[in-house]
């Protein structure tokens, strides 16, 4: 066993490149764990981020000259902690208003000693998705604090300016500190609500930037998959955590089949689907089914598993899909689920039933919803009402940003000569 004395160094690779590479690796592997340790007792995310950034900057310089320490993470934590204590003391001597300076310094000295890094990332996830935090900033906050993503990257995925995103993140961190939102894993009695908020935020990361079959370069699929696995690792007895991992894995298994031009699910070549991912998803879904009563993610994962079965059987079991959608629309009703159910109705029972289901949706909500118009257009086309289908495709296209998906809709519309 190697001791983790942060002062011991690995004598190889004393050059800037190695230092860069090791610092980069440590950053990606350990960022969230280090940040969670630093802010766990102070509730000050921004100060912890600054201290950690300083520590990484020093590491790049120092490791290039003196070699990489035996335990890079412990080294970074020690330096960051010192920076944090320094900044609190400086604020104190400047008489900057810092009400809890003494408490903060006390708390910092209680941070675990290097080498015994406890993992507080689950608490960090719960803090980011706290009900007192604006839901729209929970996902960005997670991506930044747990994965160390830069505001610019997050902003590009959520289609807002970097400065707007940075501002939202700063506001959220200020709220955490000022309102005293604790960095703790809540008691299991409030999990149904609190854990759902964590999973929703991760799912939002997965769907952000997905925009109907883009090429995947601008989305956060890998990050979301990683976060979902992290929750699963922490809470292996939680059905919905396994279900979310299964859901993401099923969707990701089809990535190879949807690069370049938009290919709808029903036209995808199942040989291109990632067999290993599907099998892993199956395992997680079975675990979820064993652990608890089905929730939203278990239904959604089950839907994807029915689609994945086409790789094995060559056909889609539409009546099974319809039954799961019926259950989903009761368990977690949403406009998206109702529209997807109508699309399944189209295959299972034909255009009349599908249009009837679409007509039943509240018109004030669906009017500006592209998937509604696209589903409606497909049903009308199937029912040979080409003029109405042409118009509905037109509405869908007008609501869809420039993307491979829009190209697909345009092609569909052009087949409906009106």
């Amino acid at each position, binding site marked *: 066993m190697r001791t983790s004395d942060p002062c011991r160094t690995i004598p190889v690779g004393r050059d800037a490149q190695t230092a860069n590479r090791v610092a980069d690796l440590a950053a990606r592997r350990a960022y969230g764990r280090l940040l969670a340790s630093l802010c766990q007792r102070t509730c000050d995310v921004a100060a912890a981020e600054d201290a950690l950034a300083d520590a990484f900057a020093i590491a790049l310089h120092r490791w290039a000259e003196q070699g990489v320490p035996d335990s890079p993470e412990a080294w970074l934590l020690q330096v960051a902690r010192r920076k944090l204590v320094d900044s609190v003391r400086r604020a104190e001597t400047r008489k900057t208003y810092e*009400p809890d300076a003494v408490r903060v310094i006390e708390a910092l000295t209680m941070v675990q000693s290097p080498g015994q890094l406890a993992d507080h990332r689950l608490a960090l996830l719960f803090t980011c998705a*706290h009900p*007192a935090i604006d839901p729209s900033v929970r996902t960005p906050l997670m991506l930044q604090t747990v994965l160390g993503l830069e505001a610019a990257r997050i902003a590009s995925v959520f289609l807002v300016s970097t400065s707007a995103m940075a501002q939202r993140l700063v506001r959220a961190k200020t709220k955490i500190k*000022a*309102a*005293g*939102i*604790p960095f*703790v894993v*809540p008691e299991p009695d409030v999990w149904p609500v609190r854990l759902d908020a964590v999973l929703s935020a991760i799912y939002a990361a997965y769907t952000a930037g997905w925009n109907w079959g883009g090429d995947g370069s601008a989305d956060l699929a890998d990050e979301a998959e990683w976060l979902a696995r992290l929750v699963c690792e922490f809470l292996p007895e939680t059905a919905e955590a396994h279900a979310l991992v299964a859901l993401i894995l099923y969707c990701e298994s089809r990535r190879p089949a949807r690069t370049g031009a938009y290919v709808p699910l029903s036209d995808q070549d199942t040989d291109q689907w990632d067999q290993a991912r599907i099998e892993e998803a199956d395992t997680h879904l079975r675990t979820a089914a064993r652990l608890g009563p089905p929730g939203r993610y278990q239904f959604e994962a089950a839907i994807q598993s029915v689609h994945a079965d086409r790789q094995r059987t060559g056909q889609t079991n539409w009546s099974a899909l319809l039954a799961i959608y019926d259950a989903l629309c009761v368990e977690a009703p949403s406009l998206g689920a109702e529209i997807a159910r109508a699309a399944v109705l189209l295959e299972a029972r034909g255009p009349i039933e599908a249009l009837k289901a679409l007509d039943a949706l509240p018109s004030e909500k669906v009017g500006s919803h592209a998937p509604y118009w696209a589903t409606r257009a497909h049903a009308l086309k199937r029912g040979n009402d080409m003029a109405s289908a042409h118009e509905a495709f037109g509405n869908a296209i007008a609501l869809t940003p420039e993307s491979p998906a829009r190209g697909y809709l345009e092609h569909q519309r052009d087949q409906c000569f009106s």
Partner: protein
Amino acid sequence: MRYMITIHEHEEDFAARNNPDLAPAYWATWHAYFANEVAAADPNQTGAALQDPATATTIRGTTIQDGPFADSKEQLGGFFIVDVENLDVALKLAAKCPACEKGGVEVRPVLPVPS
């Protein structure tokens, strides 16, 4: 941390205070909440209940006017200031407030005034 829990009562709750049929239950609920929850969370808590919003007088600029600040179905009915560990503890306490059923409460950290 110190938090102020402001209680925004529904007009029906204000009316219940002066209704002989409803007043006993109204006050019993509040007394129980205060004794079992608020005082239990922080024995040194402070706070007060306020009289009917119709008794309020508002000043904006130099204009003095009859009535509370905003004309809405929920009005400030009282407040507590408690010193508890963190926001989760304060929220748990606030969620049990009798006003939540028809009205609502706001939980805000108290600003420690620089000396």
